[in-house]
């Protein structure tokens, strides 16, 4: 007998399959759950005052899925055990308004659903080996600089995937 995982983790090449919020909601739904929350990240048309025409995401899939899994496990420890989570991220070239990331959480009550969703999206954004290149209307393109994954020697191993130092030109906001 196998038990279905309460976590659904997906990486979508956008030229093959777009992210699907409806499927995410369906996955985290349960007859005993009254609280469903979802975060949807879309490509916006401006970055630091410059007009953006699109972005390209690249990622290192094996480690990304490990981080997604850890994010879900940590959320389950904090807000579970009655919790279902969906995490999906796009890679490839995306246009304005396209979906970049979807996180959905289902729990019996709203508070846990909101908090679990927030916890997971913060880990996804800050700790997953995913990189974004912004394409601007003037033809220029630039890699976004975000959060360092560097592991400091003094940190315990448990912190190995819980870094948070920003890059030198980081435009990242919390």
């Amino acid at each position, binding site marked *: 007998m196998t038990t279905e995982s309460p976590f659904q983790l997906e990486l979508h090449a956008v030229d093959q399959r777009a992210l699907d919020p409806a499927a995410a909601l369906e996955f985290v739904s349960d007859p005993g759950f009254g609280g469903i929350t979802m975060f949807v990240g879309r490509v916006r048309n401006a970055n630091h005052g410059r007009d953006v025409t699109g972005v390209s995401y690249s990622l290192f899939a094996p480690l990304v899925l490990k981080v997604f899994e850890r994010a879900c496990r940590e959320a389950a420890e904090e807000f579970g055990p009655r919790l279902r989570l969906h995490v999906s991220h796009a890679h490839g070239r995306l246009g304005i308004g396209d979906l*970049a990331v979807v996180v959905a959480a289902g729990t019996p009550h709203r508070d846990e659903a909101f908090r679990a969703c927030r916890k997971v999206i913060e880990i*996804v954004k800050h700790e997953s080996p995913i990189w974004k290149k912004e394409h601007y209307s003037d033809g220029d393109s630039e890699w976004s*600089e975000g959060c*360092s994954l560097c592991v400091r020697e003094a940190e315990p191993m448990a912190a190995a995937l819980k870094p948070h130092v920003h890059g030198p030109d980081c435009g990242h906001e919390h």
Partner: protein
Amino acid sequence: MKIEIRLFGCFSEFEPDSLLRLDLPEAGLKVADARAAVQTYGEQHWPRFKPDLLRVSAFASEDSLLRDGASIPADGRLCLLPPVSGG
């Protein structure tokens, strides 16, 4: 020791196929030695190289992040991960 480093993010555009192959002088080296070798190589070959960015970039194997004090995997394969910007 021959090492092969998969380059990600901005580093991915610095080498064909996003792969950097280096021959380090001794076997059994640490990740810090690979970092120093990339620093030297980058300064000599990459016009857009930023030492500050390398300093905050992580090294990893196929399945985990590696500290600078960790040994380079026996197969010599590493990944270089600049600061991340998903979501």
